[in-house]
């Protein structure tokens, strides 16, 4: 079972304090949300959890049982839906997924691709020949969710995944996050939506310095 521990984590940018000291433990099989006003460091905390950023002070350690997960071992367990994650604009949805999932050793067959698109509410006939650069923001968000679901990753980092989605899309994200947690995924979710916060098993609130 994967856990991510924050021990005495302090984060500053160019000397400006963002948050800390923070001592938290994220656990697989549950949804942990991080809330706080804009600039309080929610996205930064997600990046720290994903080992995409080093803390100014303290330690962020991911473990699978007794084994510490670092570098490639951790990254192969990671999937994200964040505003910074972008697809190749001159590749189609299928080409993007085939490439990214292929790098994880996952082959995306026709049936699986169709089922995946249906699961995230994208219509295959609408996007078959379309480059992702021509997608709407909501469609891109759904495709990010598709990549995450198909990746088989054990750690899900979601940074306001409901942003740019319609009501059905936000419902989809909630449903998939709950299903993911039930399947034993570690779901870490940055949000300011009270409904999403209400669906969480644990909550971390960051206050602005």
């Amino acid at each position, binding site marked *: 079972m994967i856990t991510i521990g924050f021990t005495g984590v302090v984060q500053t940018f160019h000397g400006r304090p963002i948050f800390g000291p923070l001592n938290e433990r994220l656990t697989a099989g549950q949804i942990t949300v991080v809330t706080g006003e804009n600039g309080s460091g929610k996205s930064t905390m997600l990046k720290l959890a*994903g*080992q*995409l*950023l*080093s803390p100014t002070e303290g330690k962020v350690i991911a473990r699978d049982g007794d084994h510490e997960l670092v*570098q*490639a071992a951790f*990254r*192969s367990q*990671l*999937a*994200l839906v*964040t505003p*910074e*994650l*972008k*697809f*190749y*604009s*001159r*590749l189609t949805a299928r*080409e993007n997924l085939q*490439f*990214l*999932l*292929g*790098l*994880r*050793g*996952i082959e995306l067959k026709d049936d699986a691709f169709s089922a995946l698109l249906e699961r995230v509410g994208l219509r295959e006939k609408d996007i078959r020949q379309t480059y992702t650069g021509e997608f709407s923001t909501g469609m891109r968000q759904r495709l990010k969710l598709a*990549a995450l679901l198909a*990746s*088989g990753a054990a750690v899900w980092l979601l940074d306001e995944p409901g942003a740019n989605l319609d009501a059905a899309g936000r419902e989809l994200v909630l449903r998939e996050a709950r299903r993911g947690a039930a399947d034993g995924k570690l779901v870490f979710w940055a949000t300011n939506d009270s409904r999403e916060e209400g669906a969480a098993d644990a909550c971390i609130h960051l206050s602005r310095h």
Partner: protein
Amino acid sequence: MHVSIFQGIKLVFGKELTAGLRFRAAWAAMFMFALTTLACVSMAMQGGGLDPRLLAALLWVILFFASMAGADRVFADEDTAGTLLALQVYGPAQAVLLGKMLYTFFLLLVLAVFITPLFLMFMDCTVTAPLVLAGTIFLGTWGIAAAGTLIAALTTGASIHSGLFSILMLPVILPVFLPAIFLTTGAFGGDVQLSYLGGMGIYDLILTLGASVLFDYLWFEE
């Protein structure tokens, strides 16, 4: 599930090729730079004969600077488009490095195959040792691709990316550049010293291995 290194390299190479062919800016920049330089040199010489050493230097200056116009973009384009994060999260470091290096090598080889016959024709140059020329171009472009890919990764995100790339590239590539000129001089009618080919091959191998060792640090830098 894990992808084999060969499958990973194939995927990265295929993605680079597909994206490169759909958005031909890097290709166009390199080929137009090479053609323009060649046309300028050819017109300036007005059919006058040149010493083989000067011809060899001219050919490699064209190839080197044309490669600067395209090879530096392998990581910068990902950074600008915002796709670097997806690649970092999903892509194994070595597959990304070697896939991109292979693509750059392929791009430079195509450029060399395109520009060298035109150079020979416009500069009225005779090749006395075609195999030496072919071997030199192969090893020279491999060296530029290996050094270029690593330095492109190092300089990604720098505010003066292009300037920094060229400045860092020159000292790293000199051990390839100078023997390439000596060998090309030989292929154009001068003395051929085949030991330089071995030296270039060893240096290319060191560059590739060095890039491979260093890249993990860059890829997992937080």
